[in-house]
């Protein structure tokens, strides 16, 4: 088990999951605000950049590629 926070809210995930995996496992499918509405995972393999989040203060991290680490602070991104 690992714990991360998403916009300060704690979420539990399984060790080794990507950040997208943890979010989806917790029932969340959207975590980025775009012009036409919220977005989450689309391609799942690092190609489309729809799944971007801020991780520990670093922007533009692909949630589908980044393995979650216990204690990670994840924040939502708002972009056109």
């Amino acid at each position: 088990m690992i714990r991360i926070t998403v916009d300060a809210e704690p979420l539990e995930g399984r060790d080794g999951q990507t950040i997208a995996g943890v979010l989806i496992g917790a029932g969340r499918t959207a975590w980025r605000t775009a012009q036409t509405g919220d977005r989450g995972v689309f391609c799942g393999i690092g190609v489309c950049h729809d799944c971007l989040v801020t991780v520990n203060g670093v922007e533009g991290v692909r949630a589908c590629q980044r393995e979650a680490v216990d204690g990670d602070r994840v924040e939502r991104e708002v972009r056109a």
Partner: protein
Amino acid sequence: MTGIGVGVGAGARGARRVAILGGGPAGLAAAQAALAAGARVTLLDEGGRLGGQYWRHHEQLTDRRLQHGWARFERLRGVLDRAEVHNGASVWSAEASDGTLRLRAVVGPADAAGRTALEVEADAVVVATGAHDLALPLPGWTLPGVTTAGAAQALAKRDGVTVGRRTVVSGAGPFLLPVAQSLAVAGSEVVGVHEASRLGGLAAGWLPRPWQLAGKAGELVEYVGALARHRIPYRVGSGVVRVLGTDRVEGVVIAALDADWRPVPGTEREVACDSVALGHGFTPRLEVAIALGAAIEGDRRGRFVVVDDAQRTSAAGVYAAGEITGIGGADAALAEGAVAGFMAAGGSLDDDRMRGPLAVRRRMRAFAARLERAHGIRPGWTSWLADDTVVCRCENVTRRTIADRADAPLRAMKLATRAGLGACQGRTCGRAVEAVVAAAGGAPEGFDRRPVLAPVRLGEVAAVGRGSDSGAVAVETAISTAGRGESAVAAAEPQ
């Protein structure tokens, strides 16, 4: 599947230096064969683990039922203790000068600040960067809950999760079958699998030479069995033409499609679901091959790296293997990789060890041609787009905006509409934009030419030294931490 035995003398000093980009079936087979031919091998892959798309896995999270040919993977991986392997290595630059090929990568957790710079020099490079899904746009496809078929597959295999509880799978090609199986095993109800091609097209593609399916047949039969066990309906000549919902997926509209993939009026029906997996085929990841100067050929339906019988590209010392030379599945990728790696290491096609891979490659090339005949994208699909349907997801560019500029040269069209200029650099929308332009009377080409190979931080690129080294042993340079606020996509310039 045929393997190639590993000979002696691998990794000797003074041996040919072969760099392999990609750790999927093609890259792994290339590494094994290059080692067998006595080369010093360096393999790079941006993934955290080897295996590529086909053998994507996580020791604890992957359900064993979703893995195929695992023993082959373990054999290939086992040989690599005699090579230098870099996981988590995003290659962002590839160039040739004075007969030396040079790859530059950043190594570390995906998109992290302060990754390590890596430079690899080689006498020959095998490019095996694979493909990604081609999901055609539909009204509503930007709603959360809509993913590519490959994403559904990757999430199930890699993370053990599914996006929704009730999923509709729609698109074209045999890949929809393992995706449906994975969704079911990982716990989603699959409401239906919708294959756009009609029986006529499927029969023309598959029935004349069913023996060519040998090799792939076992796997396909297994998927069909899984569909039956999970009571998943499989419908041909139909597809999702609209996704319903306001904040997330609430359902889809499914319609019958004619032979050109045009929705047949009056056949629409609504189906309730909370997720949709779309896959209309694959598109090759050509960036590195193009950067190294390899010729690309084809038409709007598919452009691939051109290779000869030895898997040589038009660029000196550059070999290509796997999905970037044509979409033919894992067996084709393995066979091509073995040939490419062996030849890159200075081997000969007459070598006895090449007989197996060459035979498999011949059979699988025929398979790829039939795949395209049976499931290739048909031009009528653009008629399911509404005027205000987003085609370029990154920049939210609609069908109408693109069609209005269809007569402009591609570069002007991109600058005026911003289609293809967003974070993904047209990887997701490129083929769709070209189809919309073509349907509106324009003649587009060149969406696959991109200045950026892989997303890296500006700070990381700026800090990379120009130092070179004498062997395939990479130079590692510590680089400064990228500052907060920089985009993960470097200098995404319009072309």
